[in-house]
């Protein structure tokens, strides 16, 4: 009798890449719900457009490269990229902007490097930054959270939202405004207390801006779920959040007119939690070892704070992540864990002694 030869180990724990990605998708749900409640249909339209564009772009490139399309799409990574990108774009941006962002993420940042697993930069963040820099007007107008809408004004309905997105009308006044971090940034010269009093965005919120704090809490919950499911280790997100908190504590300055904001605000506003649990954790573009991820997370946390406090981008997560990606391969070279039987950690650049 003859048998097939297959190498060990025989058997597998039945985990699959596609399932991991599906879990990530599920974990975005709480955040998605809060966001859509707070900011209306725009979020869902973004999400839908981005996912559609991501899948189409991925399929197109696979076809050009003559790869099996079905096989590669089933890893769901394009969907994850689409969803994460859709979640970070402002609601009610024109449709073409979503498409441009997605095409940049999937084609330039991912497929030009060979597809899943090869890209050194986080695709979603590349897409986001490209449109942020190219189309600042569209990218800096956010929708006002539902609880702050003036009397009698409501978010546009589905049909209205679609016309805004596709026909290029701009949303009516009162519905759009700045994000809390943006507001904070350009209210330089005011005491923090004054900022909080002057702006309903802060005054009717408990810690970090109406709407935003709950979205952050929701992403935190989703992220903790993923952590529990052991999709990623705690090192990256915790390092990032701790550094961010520490920095904002150091420079908090008691709320003077120079203060870049309280730790609570930095942790729960903008994309902090979303970034910490969904972006920093992108396995492909982060550092590999646990120690490496600690450094990587800390670097991102530091950069987020530096850019938020002294740079000109109010929510610095995307830039910080790209800069972190940039440093990751270098970090990897110097954070190889100590292997069994070795006294010291080795650098990945170390030469064999006998050679």
């Amino acid at each position: 009798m003859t048998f097939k030869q297959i190498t060990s180990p025989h058997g597998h724990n039945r985990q699959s890449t596609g399932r991991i990605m599906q879990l990530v998708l599920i974990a975005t749900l709480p955040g998605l719900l809060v966001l859509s409640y707070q900011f209306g249909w725009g979020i869902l339209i973004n999400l839908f457009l981005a996912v559609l564009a991501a899948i189409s772009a991925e399929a197109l490139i696979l076809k050009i490269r003559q790869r099996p399309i079905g096989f590669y799409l089933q890893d769901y990574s394009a969907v994850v990229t689409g969803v994460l990108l859709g979640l970070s774009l402002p609601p009610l941006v024109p449709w073409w902007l979503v498409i441009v962002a997605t095409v940049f993420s999937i084609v330039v940042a991912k497929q030009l490097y060979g597809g899943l697993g090869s890209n050194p930069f986080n695709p979603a963040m590349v897409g986001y930054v490209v449109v942020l820099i190219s189309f600042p007007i569209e990218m800096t107008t956010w929708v006002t959270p539902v609880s702050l809408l003036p009397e009698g004004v409501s978010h546009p309905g589905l049909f209205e939202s679609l016309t805004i997105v596709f026909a290029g009308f701009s949303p009516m006044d009162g519905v759009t405004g700045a994000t809390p971090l943006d507001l904070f940034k350009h209210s330089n010269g005011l005491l923090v207390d004054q900022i909080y009093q002057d702006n309903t965005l802060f005054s009717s919120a408990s810690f970090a801006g109406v709407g935003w704090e709950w979205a952050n809490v929701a992403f935190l919950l989703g992220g903790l779920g993923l952590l529990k499911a052991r999709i990623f280790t705690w090192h990256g997100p915790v390092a990032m959040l701790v550094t961010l908190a520490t920095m904002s504590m150091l420079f908090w300055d008691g709320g003077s007119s120079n203060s870049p904001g309280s730790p609570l605000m930095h942790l729960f506003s903008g994309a902090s939690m979303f970034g910490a649990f969904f972006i920093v954790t992108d396995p492909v573009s982060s550092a590999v070892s646990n120690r490496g991820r600690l450094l990587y997370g800390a670097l991102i946390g530091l950069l987020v704070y530096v850019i938020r406090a002294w740079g000109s981008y109010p929510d610095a997560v995307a830039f910080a992540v790209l800069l972190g990606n940039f440093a990751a391969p270098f970090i990897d070279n110097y954070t190889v864990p100590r292997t069994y039987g070795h006294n010291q950690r080795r650098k990945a650049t170390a030469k064999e002694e006998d050679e």
Partner: protein
Amino acid sequence: MVAGHSHYNKRMQEFAIILVSSILINNYVLVQFLGLCPFMGVSKKLESAIGMSAATTFVLTLTAMASYIVNELILMPLGLIYLRTIGFILVIAAVVQFTKMFIEKTSPLLYRVLGVFLPLITTNCAVLGVALQNANKDLNFMQSSLYGFGAGIGFSLVLIFFSAMRERLAAANIPPPFEGAAIAMITAGLMSLAFMGFSGLV
């Protein structure tokens, strides 16, 4: 950033700003487009990149000082501003030659590591670029040196990280037309995208 009181603090603050500006915000490679040839050419191996960085930083700092002296003591007093380019390039060639000799004499080991990179530095735009920019900006000696040093550190930072990244790309399954220089360019583009995050920092 941090309010300084004494004169000393102010000086330090100014120096810190010069450094941050030349390393990150106005990074010579990614933002100002200087020194790109070695950036592309010597970034395939991390080890060579580190060697190149060290050598370039050294030469950059030294050139910034030397060209300041030449500019202030010879060219400016004699009204020979139009000879700046040629004067500076001579200074650079001399500094590179001097560095080479110096290293060879003092540390043969280091020379073996850095030796091959030294001649390449003469035609590195960043070196002449620093000298010219410093002269245009009318800086004092300390500031000039700091700009030179900062430029070197910025160059090194980017070059070293870039080479680590390129080593990682060696195993990636890149579409054939993009292999090599093309994907390196695109990677540099994404890096420069990331560096835009530093704009407005100071």
